[in-house]
């Protein structure tokens, strides 16, 4: 059925952009490449806005389904369609993906203006948008998986965009391989869904579960944990987060779009989309919450000691994704999606502002070499300030509302929930410290490097920054009550009642106080007494070293997983299987061929007369065979031949 919303065009337009720029981009003039690259996401965004206008206008919250008339896979009772579903959840996600996506496309025009591979870059970016919208609109788990893998591919291509650089190529491979581990879980989850539900359509799964409210735990827990593994890979949660910091090797707008605002939130979206499964698997839900909280605080501590501006933001992204998982884990899916949305605004803003700084400084990413940039990059400074305040969660900026909703929802979950809330609160403190640290180190104080002529970025970059800054200020004003009520048909009701009066207000006050405390700490350490950080680092030297080296997780993984794997590959697979077994087999076959060749070689004397002699001898033997009166010599020969022939 085709709806007048033209849902199928939303992914298809960026796909067209990808095809045009990917196939012809090298030969097209630059302005045309830019036009195609910007028109595709703009048109998709327009379609989404139109859909939003229709849905909001008519108050539609029931899902709008658009299905391809013929099935994609039909095997026995299993039928999988190409179906796109627009409901409040996917609509919010689409608005974020295409809206922020379009702004980042515009920004890229300025950022990538002087780069090699301009058309290649934009074709990948459009490809990403295609797969991401497929992922969001997918009406069943398999179609979602297609989008899921596709965004992984686009991410790989864009991380490794500067493929001449070894570190970029390796970072791309690392992201792809680590994601494979998560995708393995997702795939097993899909198989289990087929086995236990006989369908992959989200709405049918929800119907079947609603019909059996007593069905709890058991295989549902397994399915939910498998899906969680997939989400952990894509959304960079413990223990699979290691690819995201390295992914910063890609161009900065890519970090903003894919590795902060949209793709990495796909895991959160997936959990929200399949939340009925998690609701029936309380244990898995608890695991989600613990993973989220642990990741949040773990990444935040690492973020404190990073000196690369993009890496600080990368760890901050991991930490914020942990918040979203925490929100999902306490069944506050709409709060998680709310934070996803505001995070998309302020984290895209922060990354793009960082890109503006890097652009202005000619590629410098080290915070220690920045400082005093507020004079030279006034607009970038202003929007970064907005972003920092928003992520720190200070009223009335966007981050406050969403982070507060998640912390509040966690607090309501009993004693365990209060522990999670406390972890979240400490994370908020750390977030505030490291973000203001970045702010002080980059923009305030005295310039630490001489001779760098920083310049403000062009308006194609500043325009999106200003728009995102406005969204980072006002994006949360809708409030979690109204947002949750709108998402209710898709993510279930949000339980926000408490017996304690004014609890929400008190918790909000605590959160804001913590954020301001973080600011104060950062002010003391990085502005008032600049010698303090080094002294502190010296005083707690082992701890500092541990954190600055990211808890040696990469090294541990390298020693525990990568090295043994390489050793097994090299010795068991390489020497034993490849060398001895396969190699031996190949040598044996070659030996047989060689040996028989050596014998048969004698016939190939090159002497014409010997060939002719063999020819004549062969003809004579055949003649003899044909002329021999077999039936007289051996009366049963005919029967024998017929029997051999199978009659």
């Amino acid at each position, binding site marked *: 059925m085709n709806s007048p919303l033209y849902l199928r065009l939303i992914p298809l337009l960026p796909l067209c952009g990808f095809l045009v720029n990917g196939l012809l981009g090298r030969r097209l003039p630059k302005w045309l490449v830019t036009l195609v690259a910007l028109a595709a996401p703009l048109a998709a965004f327009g379609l989404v806005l139109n859909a939003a206008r229709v849905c909001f206008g008519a108050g539609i919250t029931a899902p709008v389904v658009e299905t391809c008339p013929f099935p994609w896979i039909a095997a026995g009772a299993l039928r999988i369609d190409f179906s796109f579903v627009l409901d409040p959840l996917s609509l919010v996600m689409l608005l974020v993906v295409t809206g922020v996506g379009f702004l980042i496309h515009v920004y890229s025009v300025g950022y990538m203006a002087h780069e090699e591979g301009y058309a290649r870059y934009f074709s990948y970016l459009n490809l990403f948008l295609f797969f991401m919208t497929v992922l969001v609109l997918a009406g069943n788990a398999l179609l979602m998986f297609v989008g899921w893998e596709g965004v992984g591919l686009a991410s790989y291509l864009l991380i490794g965009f500067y493929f001449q650089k070894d570190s970029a190529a390796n970072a791309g491979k690392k992201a792809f391989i680590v994601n494979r581990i998560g995708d393995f879980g997702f795939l097993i989850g899909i198989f289990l869904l087929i086995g236990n539900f006989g369908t992959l359509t989200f709405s049918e799964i929800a119907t079947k579960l609603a019909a059996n409210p007593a069905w709890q735990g058991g295989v549902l827990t397994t399915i939910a944990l498998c899906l969680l593994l997939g989400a952990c890979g894509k959304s960079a949660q413990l223990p699979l987060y290691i690819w995201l910091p390295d992914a910063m090797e890609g161009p900065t707008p890519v970090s903003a779009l894919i590795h902060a605002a949209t793709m990495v939130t796909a895991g959160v979206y997936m959990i929200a989309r399949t939340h009925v499964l998690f609701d029936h698997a309380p244990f898995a839900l608890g695991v989600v919450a613990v993973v989220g909280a642990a990741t949040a605080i773990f990444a935040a501590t690492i973020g404190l000691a990073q000196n690369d501006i993009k890496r600080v933001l990368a760890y901050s992204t991991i930490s914020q994704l942990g918040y979203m998982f925490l929100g999902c884990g306490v069944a506050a899916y709409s709060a998680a999606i709310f934070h996803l949305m505001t995070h998309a605004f302020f984290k895209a803003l922060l990354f793009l502002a960082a890109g503006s700084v890097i652009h202005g400084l000619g590629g410098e990413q080290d915070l220690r070499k920045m400082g005093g940039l507020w004079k030279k990059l006034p607009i970038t400074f202003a929007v970064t300030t907005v972003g920092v305040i928003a992520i720190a969660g200070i009223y009335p900026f966007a981050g406050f509302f969403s982070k507060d909703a998640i912390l509040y929802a966690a607090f309501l979950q009993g004693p365990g929930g209060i522990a999670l809330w406390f972890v979240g609160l400490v994370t908020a403190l750390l977030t505030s410290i490291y973000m203001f640290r970045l702010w002080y180190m980059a923009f305030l104080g005295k310039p630490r490097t001489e001779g760098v002529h920083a310049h403000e970025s062009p308006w194609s970059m500043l325009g999106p920054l200003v728009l995102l800054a406005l969204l980072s200020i006002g994006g949360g004003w809708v409030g979690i009550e109204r947002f949750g009520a709108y998402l209710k048909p898709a993510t279930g009701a949000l339980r926000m009642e408490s017996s304690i009066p004014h609890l929400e207000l008190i918790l909000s006050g605590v959160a804001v106080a913590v954020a301001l405390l973080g600011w104060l700490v950062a002010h003391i350490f990085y502005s008032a007494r600049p010698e303090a950080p080094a002294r502190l680092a010296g005083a707690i030297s082992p701890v500092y070293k541990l954190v600055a080296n990211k808890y040696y997780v990469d090294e541990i993984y390298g020693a525990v997983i990568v090295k043994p794997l390489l050793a097994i590959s090299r010795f068991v697979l390489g020497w034993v299987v490849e060398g001895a077994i396969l190699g031996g087999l190949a040598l044996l076959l070659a030996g047989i061929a060689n040996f028989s060749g050596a014998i048969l070689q004698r016939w*190939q*004397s*090159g*002497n*014409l*007369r010997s060939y*002719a*002699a063999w020819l*004549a001898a062969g003809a004579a033997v055949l003649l003899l065979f044909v002329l021999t009166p077999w039936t007289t010599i051996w009366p049963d020969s005919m029967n024998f031949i017929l029997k051999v022939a199978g009659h």
Partner: protein
Amino acid sequence: MNSFLSQQVPLSWFLLLSAVLFVLGIVGFLIKRNLITVFMSIELMLNAVNLSFVTFACQWHAVKGQIFVFFVMMVAAAEAAVGLAIIIAIFRVRATLAVDRIDLMKL
């Protein structure tokens, strides 16, 4: 003609002559060293076959055999032209026509 064949000279004589000529051709092909003699042996074999073709054509009153002979003669003529040309070319290059010394195909 037909009665002459069937009554006075037996069919087998013609076929025997054909076989003898063919074997002569084979033997000549195999044992002679001179390329031209080898070539002539091939012609001899072709004509031996031609003889059995016309013999059977007469025997069975079938014209196909005679038509076939024309084809064989035509091919033989063409082959003679090409073959002699090759022989001349070989002689110019190698200054010999000994078959066992023309073995460039050998590895």
